[in-house]
């Protein structure tokens, strides 16, 4: 199974900023992503497409730092839909995104 993140991007980042800072940033990403997913689900219950758009945009930015292109692409698709106020299939998309993020974070745990 191919990885969600790009190992060379992560290795390069780790080398660039050092292991300690990388650990801090990774922990911070985990906390941020979990918070954003929670915010996304809450926004969906009230059909707050703008908050949903901003949330998936933040996910896209955060996972982008690890070269997680499949997750980024999915987040971008969702962002464009929410921007167009299209919430069709949003529930399953959010679930899928949650799974992707969890899988990514599990992969990244290996770097700690």
């Amino acid at each position, binding site marked *: 199974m191919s990885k969600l993140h790009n190992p060379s991007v992560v290795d390069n980042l780790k080398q*660039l900023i050092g292991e300690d800072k990388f650990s801090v940033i990774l922990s911070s990403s985990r906390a941020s992503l979990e918070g954003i997913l929670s915010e996304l689900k809450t926004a969906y219950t009230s059909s707050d497409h703008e908050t949903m758009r901003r949330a998936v945009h933040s996910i896209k*930015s955060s996972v982008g730092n690890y070269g997680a292109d499949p997750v980024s692409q999915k987040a971008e698709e969702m962002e464009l839909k929410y921007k167009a106020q299209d919430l069709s299939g949003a529930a399953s998309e959010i679930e899928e995104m949650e799974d992707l993020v969890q899988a990514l974070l599990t992969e990244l745990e290996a770097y700690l």
Partner: protein
Amino acid sequence: MTASILIVDDMTDSRLLLDALLSDTYRIHLAVSGQEGLDKVKQHTPDLILLDLIMPGMDGLEVCEILKHDPDTQDIPIVFITGSTDDNEKLKAYELGADDFIHKPVNAEELTTKVSKILASQTSLKEAREMSQMAQQTALIAMTNSSELGMILKFMESANEATSFEALAKHLEEITQNFGVICCFQFNYEDTCLNFGNGCVEDSLEARMITEARKAGGIIGHGKRMFFNQHYVSMLVKNMPVEDEDKCGRYKDNLSMLLSAANGIAKTIGIGQSVARQRKQLIKDTLDSTFDRTQHIMSLIRHLESSTVNVVQDARLSFEEALYSLGLTEEQENNLIGIFNSAMDKMDTVKETAVEVEDTMTMVVKVFEKLLNEDETSTPKD
């Protein structure tokens, strides 16, 4: 001095990542929202702002607009950090004054290169502004100096017509008042020493101080008091603007130049007055000599006149004695008396001419006396 960068991003991991990439080279300040970003700008005045475009609450565009409308912050370069692919948002950001964009995920090399270039151009801009301000300041000083030199030129033009030290002193007082300084002046030419201006009279404290300073020569400064000395004229300035170093230096140069010009004029006045005195003395000597000669001529005329009267009287007596002893007929006597009287009449005419000469000479003497008296009263004192 290390440049400072403010990072404004609501995403903690993005903030920390940018901090990790830049903190070895720059001083970093962090803000988690647009409002905190504005507060940190006021607090730290960073050299560059890295601003997230999409944030909850006040977004990056709003922060950018506020900063670019504030004269205190409008020159701080703003680089947007964004994961957005929306070109309209980017266009709007540029319209609001954004300097550049960096796309998420951030490429470390692109980030450091852009930051470095923007800060370098910011430094150049600051230096150019400082140079521009300096140039403006220099131009202002040059214009002021030019105005002061203009006043000195005007002084030289008008004071050059002065024919007395008093008139020259008036010109000096006028120009030094225009400079805003209080001055006393002392002129020294041959044995003449004259004092003018602001309570400076003979034996006054100012006059004595100038006399002392004159012995040292050149420019002597004692706090606000400064003495300027030239060969024929010295000046005491009582209120040099010592609190303004540039102005004081400029005044020192320009007032020195002024006194140098005044010195040349004072020399011309001195020479002119000296020549006038010599010329008057020569005229007086000539008048004295002519007066003496005229008096002598008059005494000769009077003597001649007196001698002529005596000769005529003697001749008349001798003629009458001779006439009666000759035994002439009455007709013959009358003829001889007629001839004699005719001769006497001619002698009277000569005598009258002599009297006229005497009257004329008397008038000439009176004119000489008057000229001599006038010469005595009009001899210049300065």
